[in-house]
């Protein structure tokens, strides 16, 4: 649905741009390709890594990892698993719901979801390419730490 809106937006802008200045539009498309080409090598790597990861670490493995252990060790484990893996939302949320139903704590699930979204170990090479090593590592470290704050608040409100 959202992607369709993006397609409509991109098409309308492209047509407007073309009528206003075909030369500039051609330049824009060249820039679009260049930007894509810049991340293409890492992108291909990420796609293969994610494929391998999803094959090796199936939902049952994740359940075993973060469903069992509780308390602070459980949260740490959930945070690390979330930070390293790169699972699309449409897989992660139902998985999280199942884990909750099977007795996992709200805080573990919250910290898992948070690091999954904010921390990207696998995508670090792309991030470094754009932000440099220091900024990228700093952002990820802060995101990892703050995931526990998010989890604490969710734990207090829902737990």
């Amino acid at each position, binding site marked *: 649905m959202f*992607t369709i809106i993006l397609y409509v937006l*991109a098409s309308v802008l492209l047509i407007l741009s073309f009528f206003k200045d075909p030369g500039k539009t051609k330049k824009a498309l060249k820039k679009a390709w260049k930007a894509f080409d810049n991340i293409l090598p890492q992108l291909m790597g990420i796609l*293969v890594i994610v*494929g391998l990861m999803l*094959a090796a670490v199936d939902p049952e493995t994740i359940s075993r990892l973060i469903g069992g252990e509780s308390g602070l060790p459980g949260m740490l484990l959930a945070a690390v698993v979330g930070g390293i893996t790169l699972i699309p939302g449409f897989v992660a949320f139902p998985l999280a719901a199942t884990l909750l139903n099977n007795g996992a704590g709200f805080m573990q699930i919250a910290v898992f979801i948070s690091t999954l979204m904010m921390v990207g170990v696998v995508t670090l090479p792309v991030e470094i390419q754009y932000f440099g090593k*220091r900024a990228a590592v700093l952002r990820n470290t802060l995101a990892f730490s703050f995931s526990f704050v998010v989890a604490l608040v969710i734990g207090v409100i829902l737990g």
Partner: protein
Amino acid sequence: MNKLIRRYRFALVLVFINLLMLLILPEIGFSALYHTRINTLEMLYVIPPIFIILGLLDVWVPRETMMKLMGENSGFLGKIIAFLMGSLAAGPLYVAFPIAGLLLKKGSKFSNVLIFIGAWSTTKIPLLLFEASALGWTFMLTRFTVNLFVILLIAGITEKLLKGADKTDIYKRAHSLSN
């Protein structure tokens, strides 16, 4: 040719590992190929409009405009724009970095670019709706509210902790990557 191999060595090594898996642990190897195929198709579906919009923004939006909207002195408005841009997006986080690069090249404040990245990763609207249906509205709304502050904090702290030289390097990267 050598340059090409060097550029793609990371991907090539991984493909090699996957091929090895096909021989040693065929079940995992085939499952990996299956997941990679699905993810690749999904990525190819979402990427064209994002990069076309990026190219058009690059060509049509003057640096001065971007600086006014998201630059050093953009204040609260800059944060709001960064947040909305990230939340209204679609696609995985790694697609956001080229856009972040463009924002930097056009003179956006680094902390605003980090707000954009934060919003893209945690408050994308399609994702929130999906989260609410799977984990309930209370969970989603609580996480959303806390994350609003967390995004601002991460952006602010990262910007504060970076030295002048780091920032110069970041803007230099943005220029060399999209010229």
